[in-house]
């Protein structure tokens, strides 16, 4: 028996109309061939998870307790022949760097990475600012290409990043800025 609760939970299911950007992330990941999403949730990501639960039930959603664990599970899924994505908040990238730098990158284990960004001009909680600022330099330092999702055509950006990851065996990240996820 798998005891995993629904990915979005009652609160997110009740939280208003669908977000077009969230549908775009879901569709783009699906179009890139993603079979499994390993996640540590935050509020914006819950809208993406809701899209998968509503429209892409062939994609398995796997809850991890911590982001480094999520990257380990995703690596194992790839070794077993699946095409994984990891979805996390920018704060959680700090929990993940060793697994990325010593497993995912050197073993060339591809995956789509979707980062819900904190920090920036509209951030209400200043503790989120340092990790928010560190996301791009961290990805640059360990050799993971990244792109910031545009206001429109999010699906294309995500699909291209995922397709590039699985074609090159280098993980690719899409950053979701707050101006997008607040819309």
């Amino acid at each position, binding site marked *: 028996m*798998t005891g995993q609760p629904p990915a979005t939970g009652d609160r997110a299911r009740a939280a208003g109309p669908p977000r077009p950007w969230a549908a775009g992330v879901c569709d783009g990941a699906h179009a890139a061939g993603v079979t499994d999403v390993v996640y540590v949730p935050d509020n914006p990501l819950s809208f993406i998870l809701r899209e998968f639960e509503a429209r892409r039930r062939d994609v398995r959603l796997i809850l*991890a307790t*911590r982001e480094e*664990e*999520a990257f380990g599970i995703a690596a*194992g899924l790839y070794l*077993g*022949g699946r095409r994984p994505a990891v979805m996390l908040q920018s704060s959680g990238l700090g929990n993940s760097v060793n697994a990325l730098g010593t497993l995912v990158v050197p*073993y060339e284990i591809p995956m789509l990475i979707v980062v819900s960004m904190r920090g920036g001009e509209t951030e209400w909680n200043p503790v989120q600012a340092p990790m928010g600022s560190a996301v791009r330099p961290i990805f640059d330092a360990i050799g993971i290409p990244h792109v910031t999702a545009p206001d429109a055509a999010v699906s294309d950006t995500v699909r291209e990043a995922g397709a590039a990851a699985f074609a090159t*065996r280098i993980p690719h990240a899409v950053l979701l800025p707050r101006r997008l996820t607040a819309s």
Partner: protein
Amino acid sequence: MTRLDATRVIVEACPDAAIVASLGHPAYDLFAAADRPRNFYTWGSMGVASSIGLGIALARPDARVVVLDGDGSLLMNLGSLATVGMLQPPNLTIVVMDNELYATTGGQPTATAAGADLAAAARAMRIEESVTVRTEAELTARLRARLTPRAPAVIVAKVGESHPTVKPPLDYVGIKQRFMAALGCPEC
């Protein structure tokens, strides 16, 4: 029972299993016991071996997956036990080579030396088939009982240090490609 003794028991009892080894001494001992294509040696990512094994077990329910973890490593990622307990993959066996030491880094004691009980932690996270073994006979019996598993298990093997003298190659991509081909999902 040294860690190398326990590793040999596992390789013999589970000849077809995909085996994921935690970095350092557990990986060195697996290489010394048998350099099989279905071995996945990690060279970093301390703590993550059980998570890699979980991912393989979920991807390949037809395959038997064994993780050779360390006590220090599993203590870094105890949340992994909660995830395994939640998902209940029957084909996953996590063997914790518990020497109560950070052996690879110089032999400093871990929390299990002070009595931390990883099998009890696993049972508390709903991995109910979790036990501590101290002899090769006990370990063999536990592994044989899992030939047709119905639930995941954690086997904490109390082991002595075996002082490895050989190491697998630093060929990360080669390790991955050989492993995936042996599992029937080649990359190319």
